[in-house]
């Protein structure tokens, strides 16, 4: 019953979406407001019907309607409520339904927010977003219908994959991933609208800035939360393995980041028109490619739910997207030539361009390493794998260059700068960077790449800090406010710029955390009898006991462990193995004693069935906690950057121009549209 209702909602959404595409394009060509309004209403109806389908699925999950195959596969009467609610993304069909819903949400927000603006261009945005929706609806109504029936109806189900129901981060990582991935559809749709109307100046990059930042921050949070989940659940004591599914999330993030930087050059200097279109098309294509990699089953992983036929469909869609986008670009190739020119290599725009090239080089490296095994197997039949050392060796130098550039870029003025001024600007940061490397060395952080990373981090943080300090001092000198007040005004006056600085500080924090934890880990493994101790780094670990624990939805084997440092007990921890019904493999549930200095990671590897011994893995890693914190810092910086500027901002811009003149550098870009 509810199954038919869900399928009907999806079928109606398909009809509405097709209607919306046709009517929007006709409305735009005839310049007919009633037709365009009808297209907009179709987009809103598309959202309403998708919502209905999601509600139907949630209802089926909560009422344990096992006549629906999806519910029979991921539901179970013993699964707790929260887990049941998030089971919508625990398997293939539900996750594509959720994807559709996120897309419909973005589409509805987009047409509603812009209902009075970009009158000529917006119908093409609507049509593009609905076009993507049609593909997902076709997948949902065809090979992976979440509302398909099962017969006979089973009395109970196995519950979602234990790996997914074992940790609360599963409530954060998948929706953030969808909001990020799908979010890049919006800037892509605007790029297509710009090409379709032939209006390829900077209007569209201004319009999509906030949308892109929203997609970007969700994807950032998702990548970090995914790493955190791997760290807390998978039990190998790490958060990143260059696994293809991780790379699938990283690649659109990298190209999206490049796009975020180069759009500023287009806004400011009318350069890079075609480049920006190419970047957002690539970003969007990589999100579809990533979905293909993770969902098609070509790779075995927790994300490839089961063998399915959707792989070829996604590849076909990817080919259509690339062909269509290339066609549109060629159609407008003449207008995509930028009027602006690069004046000097020592300028802000050149720094942005170098950053873009670095991001693309990293993406290219990751892409080749990821697809090489697939291509090699398809071409020669030989099964190969590309090891993590390849990715590390290739990307670490490029990432170090990115950290360096975060210090250089913001200090360079637009257009051109003199060499003399630069020397004075970078002297203090260079000294501080060297000091950071020396201190890290003294603290025991050896190795060329980690030391270089710490040094460059010190350099870039100091360079950014001195920029901020200079702005604050100028205001204080002019008697505007005290130091704190001046800082607040400085940030409020140019949220984009200083929000960006906060994000950069978060990225540098992540780079330091990764360099430290990756290169200075101590790993020990031993079988302990009850009462026995093992040593890892400065810590000794004692096994106090082992017991079984019956919980409503699982059975757990729990080791009780005391962590001691310098002879004193500092923490008691209980790493465990969770056994779920109908699952052969238990789910490791490591536990981490965290501090701002280092983490002690404990994992129960094996145990004697009489409870006399347990085999423990202990990993000591410095600064890991800062990687999770950096995600929060980047999110906070992004919020500062996208916060709507008030009317007052106009006045501040004029004040800033004066300040900038006094400093002998150019003011920042003029405030863009007041609202989104």
């Amino acid at each position: 019953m509810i199954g038919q209702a869900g399928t009907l909602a999806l079928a109606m959404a398909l009809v509405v979406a097709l209607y919306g595409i046709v009517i929007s394009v006709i409305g735009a060509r005839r310049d007919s407001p009633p037709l365009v309004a009808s297209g907009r209403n179709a987009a809103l109806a598309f959202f309403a019907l998708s919502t209905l389908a999601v509600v139907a699925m949630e209802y089926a999950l909560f009422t344990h309607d096992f006549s629906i195959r999806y519910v029979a596969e991921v539901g179970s009467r013993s699964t707790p409520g929260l887990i049941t609610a998030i089971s919508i993304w625990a398997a293939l069909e539900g996750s594509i339904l959720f994807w559709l819903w996120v897309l419909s949400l973005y589409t509805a927000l987009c047409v509603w927010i812009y209902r009075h603006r970009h009158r000529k261009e917006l119908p093409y945005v609507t049509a593009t977003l609905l076009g993507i929706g049609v593909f997902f609806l076709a997948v949902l109504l065809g090979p992976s219908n979440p509302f398909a029936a099962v017969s006979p109806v089973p009395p109970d189900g196995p519950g979602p994959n234990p790996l997914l129901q074992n940790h609360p981060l599963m409530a954060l990582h998948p929706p953030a991933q969808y909001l990020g991935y799908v979010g890049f559809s919006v800037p892509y749709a605007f790029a297509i609208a710009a090409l379709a109307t032939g209006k390829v100046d900077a209007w569209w990059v201004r319009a999509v800035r906030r949308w892109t930042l929203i997609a970007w921050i969700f994807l950032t949070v998702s990548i970090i939360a995914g790493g955190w989940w791997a760290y807390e659940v998978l039990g190998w004591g790490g958060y990143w393995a260059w696994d293809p599914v991780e790379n699938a999330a990283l690649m659109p993030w990298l190209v999206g980041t490049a796009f975020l930087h180069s759009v500023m050059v287009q806004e400011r200097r009318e350069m890079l028109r075609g480049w920006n279109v190419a970047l957002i098309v690539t970003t969007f294509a990589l999100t579809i490619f990533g979905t293909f990699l993770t969902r098609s089953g070509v790779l075995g992983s927790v994300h490839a739910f089961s063998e399915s036929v959707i792989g070829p469909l996604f590849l076909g869609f990817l080919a259509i997207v690339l062909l269509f986008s290339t066609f549109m670009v060629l159609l407008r190739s003449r207008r995509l030539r930028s009027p602006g020119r690069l004046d000097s290599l020592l300028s802000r725009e050149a720094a942005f361009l170098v950053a873009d090239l670095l991001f693309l080089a990293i993406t290219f490296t990751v892409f080749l390493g990821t697809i090489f095994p697939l291509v090699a197997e398809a071409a020669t039949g030989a099964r190969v794998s590309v090891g993590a050392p390849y990715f590390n060796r290739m990307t670490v130098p490029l990432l170090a260059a990115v950290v360096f550039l975060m210090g250089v870029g913001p200090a360079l003025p637009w257009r051109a700068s003199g060499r003399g001024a630069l020397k004075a600007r970078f002297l203090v940061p260079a000294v501080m960077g060297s000091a950071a490397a020396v201190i890290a060395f003294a603290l025991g952080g050896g190795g060329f790449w980690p030391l270089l990373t710490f040094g460059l981090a010190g350099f870039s943080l100091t360079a950014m800090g001195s920029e901020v300090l200079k702005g604050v001092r100028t205001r204080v000198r002019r008697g505007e406010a005290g130091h704190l007040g001046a800082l607040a005004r400085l940030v409020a006056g140019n949220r984009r710029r200083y929000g960006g600085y906060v994000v950069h500080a978060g990225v540098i924090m992540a780079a330091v955390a990764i360099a430290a934890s990756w290169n200075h880990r101590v790993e020990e493994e031993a079988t302990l009898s009850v009462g026995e101790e093992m040593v890892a780094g400065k810590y000794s670990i004692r096994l106090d006991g082992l017991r079984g624990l019956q919980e409503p939805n699982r059975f757990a084997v729990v080791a009780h462990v005391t962590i001691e440092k310098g002879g004193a007990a500092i923490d008691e921890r209980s790493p465990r193995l969770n056994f779920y019904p109908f699952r052969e493999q238990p789910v490791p549930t490591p536990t981490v004693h965290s501090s701002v200095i280092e983490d002690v990671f404990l994992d129960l590897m094996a145990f004697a069935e009489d409870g006399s011994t347990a085999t423990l893995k202990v990993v000591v890693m410095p600064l890991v906690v800062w990687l999770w914190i950096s995600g929060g810092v980047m999110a906070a910086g992004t919020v500062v950057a996208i916060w709507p500027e008030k009317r007052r901002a106009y006045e501040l811009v004029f004040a800033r121009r004066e300040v900038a003149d006094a400093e002998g550098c150019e003011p920042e870009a003029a405030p863009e549209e007041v609202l989104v």
Partner: protein
Amino acid sequence: MSRTWRTLAGIAVVGGALLYLFAAGIGDNLVYFLTPSELLAKGPDAYDIPFRLSGQVEPGSVRWDAATLDLRFRLRDNSTSLEVESTGTPPRMFHDGIHVVVEGSMASTGQFQARTLMVKHSNEYKPAPGEGHPEARFPALQGRGGSS
């Protein structure tokens, strides 16, 4: 014109350097997947070169010393099997007949020295008798108090 040439030259140099780095990087880090019979067919040519082997754990062949963490078992495919040596804890519930992938290299003694060991497991729904009650697998651990 000179500007265009300079740009092109720059792109060529950077692109060439990247391609070289890439080719060198990927070539050094490629690991081939083989089955035990494919590896044995290579004979001494395969000694000390890293490979990934996939196969099944031969029933009755697993020997694990919990004290030294020394693990030995035989890995087999349809036609043959070879001995694998590893240090570390076998993956949870490592049992006879399970499908595993080991990465390491063949020693001249004829044993495969594994550095890493992964279990290939499927998440497919497979009801098995008694499996609805995992606690039944560990009667000795049930109802045990906390610290003993």
